[in-house]
């Protein structure tokens, strides 16, 4: 079998923050009634993580469960495991109306790392980036300039951004532009 490659094959830029193509990431979209015990059990069994509350992200490294909308979550897993988890989730959810899809290849993931993280993000996304509103453990579906994206923080100095694969180059160029030295805003505390 041929090697799979991420959209930008690990491209990176070092500026006010480091921008990096985070490589292949397993991603599974699950739609259904997130309040049902069946669904919660299935997620717990497949991911070993709790169902996130509204706007919450339970992430640990390559694995995670992220709130996407009242009837949708995004499961993170190692890329190679996505197919297996889709199968097991589909099986355990066979009896309840739901949708489980591997979307790992539909997306690109970028990692931003550095002290000026919030300032760089604030140049391209309209969400409230104050630490009170957006901190590790929360996720936002929003836009980055002209494309849709989801963003969460892994720790106070790093965030991951998911966008559609076809606009990976745009997202990388956009984030690199926003991180260009000379554009320091000194708004959010480092």
């Amino acid at each position, binding site marked *: 079998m041929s090697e799979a490659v991420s959209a930008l094959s690990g491209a990176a830029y070092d500026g006010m923050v480091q921008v990096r193509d985070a490589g292949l990431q397993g991603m599974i979209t699950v739609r259904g009634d997130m309040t049902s015990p069946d669904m919660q059990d299935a997620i717990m069994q497949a991911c070993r993580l709790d169902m996130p509350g509204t706007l919450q992200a339970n992430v640990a490294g390559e694995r995670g469960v992220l709130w996407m909308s009242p009837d949708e979550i995004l499961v993170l897993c190692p890329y190679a495991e996505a197919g297996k988890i889709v199968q097991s989730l589909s099986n355990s959810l066979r009896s309840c109306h739901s949708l489980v899809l591997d979307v790992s290849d539909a997306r690109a993931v970028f990692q931003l790392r550095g002290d000026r993280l919030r300032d760089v993000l*604030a140049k391209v*996304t309209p969400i409230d980036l104050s630490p009170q509103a957006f901190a590790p453990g929360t996720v936002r579906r929003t836009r980055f300039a002209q494309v849709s994206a989801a963003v969460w923080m892994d720790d106070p100095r790093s965030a991951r951004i998911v966008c559609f694969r076809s606009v990976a180059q745009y997202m990388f160029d956009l984030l690199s532009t926003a991180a260009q030295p000379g554009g320091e805003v000194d708004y959010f505390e480092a």
Partner: protein
Amino acid sequence: MSKRLSKGGRLTDRSHLMSFTFNGRQMMGVAGDTLASALMANGQMLMGRSFKYHRPRGVVGSGAEEPNALMGLGTGDRFEPNQRATTTELFDGLSAKSQNHWPSLNADIGVANNALSRFLPAGFYYKMFIHPRPFWKHVYEPIIRHSAGLGLAPKAESRDPDRYEHFHTHVDLAIVGGGIAGLHAARLAGAAGLTVLVMEQTAHWGGRAPVDGGSIDGQAPDEWVDDVVAELAAMPNVHLRLRTMGAGVYDHGYLLGYERIADHAPGSDAPRHRLWRIRATQILTATGAIERPLSFAGNDKPGVMLASAARDYAVNWGVGVGDRVAVVTNNDDAYRTAITLHQMGITVPIILDARPAGGGALMQQAEALGLRVEPGWAIAKVDGHKQVSSIRVCAQDGSGVVQEEIACDAVAMSGGWSPVVHLWSHCGGKLDWDEAQALFRPRAEAAPLSHDGQPFVTVAGAADGALQHADTLANADAQARRAMARLAATADAPAPVVATEAETPLAPIWLMPANAGPELKGKAWLDYQNDVKVSDVELAAREGYESVEHTKRYTTLGMATDQGKLSNINGLATLSRALDEAIPQVGTTTFRPPYTPISMGAIGGEARGDIFQPVRRTPMHDWHQDNGADWEPVGQWRRPFCYRRAGETRHAAVTREVTATRNSLGLLDASTLGKIIVKGPDAGRFLDMLYTGKMSTLKPGKCRYGLMCNENGFLMDDGVVARIDEDTFLCHTTTGGADHIHSHMEDWLQCEWWDWKVYTANLTEQYAQIAVVGPNARKLLEKLGGMDVSKEVLPFMGWVDGKLGGFPVRIYRISFSGELSYEISVPASMGRALWDSLWTAGAEWNITPYGTETLHVLRAEKGFIMIGDETDGTVIPQDLGLGWAISKKKDDYLGKRAQERTHMADPNRWALVGLETLDGSVLEDGAYAVAEGVNANKQSNTQGRVTSTYYSPTLDKGIAMGLVHNGPDRMGEVIAFTDGEGGTTEARIVSQVFYDPDGSKQDV
């Protein structure tokens, strides 16, 4: 003559000299100068020419309100016209050019207009250029275009070398204005723990207070400002931004800020401007007030300026605006200018106070200093051409009989103050006329309201009409607490105590002298930049203009780049006098954002060059790029139109691609096709409603072509639906339709059929999709191996999952070309690898990648329709002979009812046919079929039009499809089509299926 004083200049550093040029002449300024203060320090009072009469003009103000001192700044790619000298911070190497004159600032031919000014009254253009009609287009317009416009447009080939960006932030309280009112409010809100953003448009905190004097809490104002700023800077919840203007207030607390980061440091690696996009729960505007000019004859001559500006130049920049400065006023504040200038060594020969009894404590101070004060006096006219040389003085209540001539080279005037209410008004805040102070101030009960019905803008300090220094901070204190209460916050700190001279009320003076005759009124300017005089507004009133909005447009009052910051109140007061109506009845014109012009670059932000717009790329994009792709935008995707080899024309490339595909093997990147998963117990029922055909009867493993119509019956998308399992369908859409069709599905599911159990997901980008097309397609797949792709196992319109050459794929036997064709879907991350494998393995069959044009030619040869060519939003499936794709067994589908309406069922609708030119040529795209006679507009009647037209390499002739009246019943008939050059081309009506009509080639 204006010059640098021996002292003063609290904002400047005289040890740091800066060199700049004005109209090519080398001049020196100091750090902290504005371009305006530096020019005056060099004795340059003449700074430009007016727009209409080309009159010599000098600086009037010291800030954002400046109407006259507009410059062309920079050179080459950085040239920018109409920049205000008063808000341009000086930097080493600055290059400025004055505007609106020819051949030079000192000798301008356009000033001839000035001599003709009595023939250029308000509405001149409307009156003059209407007759004779043809003259407008051929004579008047070209001449006016030549003389119109302020400043020079940047050269067409120049490209802005700077970068720009946006910044989004959410705060509890945004404060616009960093004067003492704004700073005090920030201190209260900051101490209460609110997140606060304070924006100040200049490079310095404190506003006018340090110039105006007095004391705050026993401190000099500048010391108080420094202390408060230091206190705020230490608060983590308070953000301070200098050089950032509050540009506009919009619904629900959206506020735009305009930060000029690098205007004073061009060429640095910082962005030049940053547009702040602020979501504020509450907005407090502490934007101060702007002084008004007085209307007397010659009030536009260089050297006549606002009293506050004369004081600013002396105190802030250590520049004297003249050697002898006469002061004329209707209020007490201008005495501060007289006293300040006198104390700094400038002669103040006379203070003309239009009030019969003069002023109060400040007047006494001036008199005690030995200054000559003349209550009840006014200026009759100003002498001098390019600079004031003297003034003639008279009684204010007379008609201008000259009492005395006073030699002076500058005049400091004050007609009272107008609060800056722009931001309050942007989103609907109403104003009241304050009779006592003669100004419009915000009406607190009529504030802009947010989504919850609560006010979200509060005005503080001088902007709220609290002009008297002692009132300003008291007002700011009360208003800040009011805004904080709306955020459920309180403050304990007491209001600061301000000590300042008491002032006596001003007298509203709208014309000087009160009974000035036509000659004086014709030289009394209201709007400097657009050359509108008292006489123009009076003429408009005489001609029947009663509405202030109409008068504005007729006279152009307040329509210049300064948007009437100095002229509006004087103009409408003049109009109200002419109409004999009270000022509140006349009202104001509408305040619209931005407060002062902001750069287009800031609005565009980072969106330029490579990131002007997102370009969507398929996983094979780079391969296409490296192999001669001639790109075509399709939605936001880029798809190869064709692949050109060295020296090859597009036509040759397309011919080669078509021929290779028909004869052997073609390869198409079809990844952009929409792929939407529809799943659930009600999925079949749902798709039966969305498509005209019946999808619920489709068997898993099979595909079916479907048409989708909107509620009005019009065809909006088509594509192949594959049934994956009992509950799951995969719907292919057109490239451009994917997002729209997904939204369409969700719309119906969420709003209409919310109880149906269906989930959808857009999987377009999960898969790369590659079409392998041509008689050798099967051989190529067999060569890669791993799957049985024979006709028996994978028949036409079937699909199968498996591993092809090691790749996990789903193969669809579908054809948009009429050839044996497989569309192979593979996870996007392996798309490029699969493409490379196919490319390499296909070499023995001369595998030929083809682009969208070949795709079009192939489908047109087969008579397949294309959404967007055969459809245009007015076409129904029945027009296209697609009745076979409409299920007769269904009760309903979206569009069914609409298609039964009279007009849709009319047999006279144009219907799809093939067209073949008699001479083999290619019909023009969009050409009309000509019919007998003419219509009501004397245009030729039509009986059809071309929807697709190509040269067919397979048939070596032009082929086309078109919609023709009764077309399918007229097979063999020859009709004429327009050829785009006035003639016609004859074409025969034929079947639209030109190639392989029985479909034997795709089903092998």
